């Protein structure tokens, strides 16, 4: 029997056992769909996090006061000392390093913003003019903190804040009170939405000196540094550590992390997560495979006399094996295809429900899902097909 006839005949058989076939196809399809949807979800989460983190800026290095690692610790901890402050002076030294393109010290706090009878609490960032290019922020009106005039009382408003206080859109040049001081609005940030859980539309930015005064602190919250290039990131990190160690009496009491490292860690974790859920989903495919084997074994038992007849008509064992094999192939092919469609539908629904989540199933997952379906189906059919082919024709004809 040639390939085409084998495929045609087995296809007709699959179609004629409608309920049985539909159930197997459904089991297969659900397994494949689970793989596709779950990997889409995992991949979407990964792309979301990576995208959010990349939107912070490029080639970033962060300096935080205190050590993040617990190993070894710093000696001061045992004596109940707090780590040394990270100061503006530290930031200035870092700014002179050759690997550093620009830097922005950062202080964060909350203060009351009042103007024209309106009052609300806002998150205040204290920084310098370099914050804008480092964080890839954009202005919709006016200008950012002017370089070299850190001592002047300027304020940049987030888009939502600007709209709330100056609904007429004319915020630039207006005066506004933050805490106890009066500030001149120099610019308004373009709407950016949320990024890493931080909504830059509802912040205000003031010069770092004013912020330190406002919050009565000498210590910086962070120093954001942009390296000159990607290859400069690691040298910059090493140089920063070195400089700060020297300035802090030989103690490493700051944490220097690179955006790349964080990104790579997130990427790794979320990839592992995606693989994990794909693996769990694949188990359902294996279960579907066992179902296929079970149903094929029943089919062999049911069609014993038919197998006997085929043998009597002169079908060699190989033909019979191939017929059952092809049947399983059709079932898993249909299951894989329908599952792929279902999975993509599911991913589409997820994208519809959560537009910020790029839940596209990765190609490898779709291929792996369908391939696993085919493979399990085919493997599951080996035993029943072999059993059918081995049947003794005389016994098979009598239905035994």
């Amino acid at each position, binding site marked *: 029997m040639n390939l085409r*006839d084998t495929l045609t005949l087995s296809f007709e058989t699959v179609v004629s056992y409608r309920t049985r076939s539909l159930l197997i196809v459904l089991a297969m399809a659900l397994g494949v769909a689970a793989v596709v949807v779950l990997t889409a979800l995992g991949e979407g989460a990964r792309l979301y996090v990576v995208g959010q983190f990349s939107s912070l800026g490029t080639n970033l290095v962060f300096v935080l006061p205190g050590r993040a690692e617990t190993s070894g610790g710093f000696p001061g901890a045992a004596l109940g000392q707090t780590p040394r402050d990270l100061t503006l002076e530290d930031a200035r030294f870092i700014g002179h390093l050759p690997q550093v393109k620009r830097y922005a010290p950062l202080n964060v706090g909350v203060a009351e913003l009042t103007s024209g009878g309106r009052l609300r609490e806002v998150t205040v960032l204290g920084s310098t003019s370099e914050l804008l290019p480092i964080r890839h922020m954009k202005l919709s009106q006016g200008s950012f903190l002017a370089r070299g005039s850190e001592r002047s009382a300027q304020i940049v408003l987030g888009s939502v804040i600007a709209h709330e206080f100056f609904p007429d859109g004319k915020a630039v040049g207006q005066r506004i009170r933050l805490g106890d001081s009066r500030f001149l609005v120099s610019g308004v940030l373009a709407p950016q939405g949320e990024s890493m859980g931080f909504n830059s539309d509802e912040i205000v930015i003031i010069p770092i000196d004013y912020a330190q005064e406002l919050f009565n602190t000498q210590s910086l919250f962070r120093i954001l540094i942009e390296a000159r290039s990607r290859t400069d990131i690691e040298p910059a990190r090493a140089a920063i550590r070195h400089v700060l160690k020297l300035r802090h009496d030989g103690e490493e009491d700051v944490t220097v992390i690179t955006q790349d490292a964080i990104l790579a860690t997130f990427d790794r974790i979320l990839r592992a997560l995606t693989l994990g859920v794909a693996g769990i989903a694949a188990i359902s495919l294996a279960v579907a495979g066992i179902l296929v084997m079970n149903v094929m074994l029943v089919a062999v038992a049911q069609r014993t006399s*038919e197998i006997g007849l085929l*043998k009597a*008509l002169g079908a*060699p064992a*190989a033909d019979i094996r191939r017929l059952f094999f092809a049947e399983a192939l059709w079932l898993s092919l249909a299951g894989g295809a329908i599952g792929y469609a279902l999975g993509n539908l599911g991913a589409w629904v997820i994208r519809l429900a959560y537009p910020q989540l790029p839940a596209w199933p990765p190609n490898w997952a779709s291929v792996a899902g369908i391939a696993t379906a085919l493979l399990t189906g085919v493997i599951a059919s080996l035993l029943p097909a072999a059993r059918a082919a081995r049947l003794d024709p*005389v016994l098979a*004809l009598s239905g035994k």
Partner: protein
Amino acid sequence: MIRLAAITRVFRMGDQEVRALNGINLDIASGEYVSIMGPSGSGKSTLLNVIGLLDQPNSGRYELDGRDVTGLSETERARVRREKIGFVFQSFHLVPRLTAAENIELPLMLEGIAPAERKTRVDAALDAFDLKDRARHRPAELSGGQRQRVAIARATILRPTALLADEPTGNLDHRIGAEVMELLEGLHHAGTTLIVVTHDRELGARAHRHIAMRDGEIVADEK
């Protein structure tokens, strides 16, 4: 064309050995019409299965058309079966999912004949067996006589040299059975060797050569 020499077929039933065929020697010439009769358990069906290469003897030698087919591989035996043997069964053995035409087409498919030629040959067979208006019907929609006609059409579509019928009228009433026998005898007249296994004396008597079996041995062979 069929030459059996000292054919023995032993079945094991628990710890007991049953000699279904015990040293059978039998020559059947091309174009003969033979009936094999005997009580149930006499080995007549086993003999038919051995002749049809469905069953293999434990010992002895079987020549078909001058060729020793005793030691053939499974695949080789399937090929010989396909090309030289046609089976007709008491219970018809039609594939319930397939239409009459598709059932008749099965051996052509197994032989690997192209679809266009298959169609012409199936159409011719449907014509010859008066099944033209039943071509698209499934076995469940056919009468017993029609089913057996489909089975015979299928058995003869590859023009086998020998037609082996095991109780071909066993599931049919007398009148329809007689029609089926006439059909088989017509094929015999056209040159096919016809071997009919039956325990129906009247049916057996119609053959030109009568073989009687008992306990795995041939006890009478009359022409």
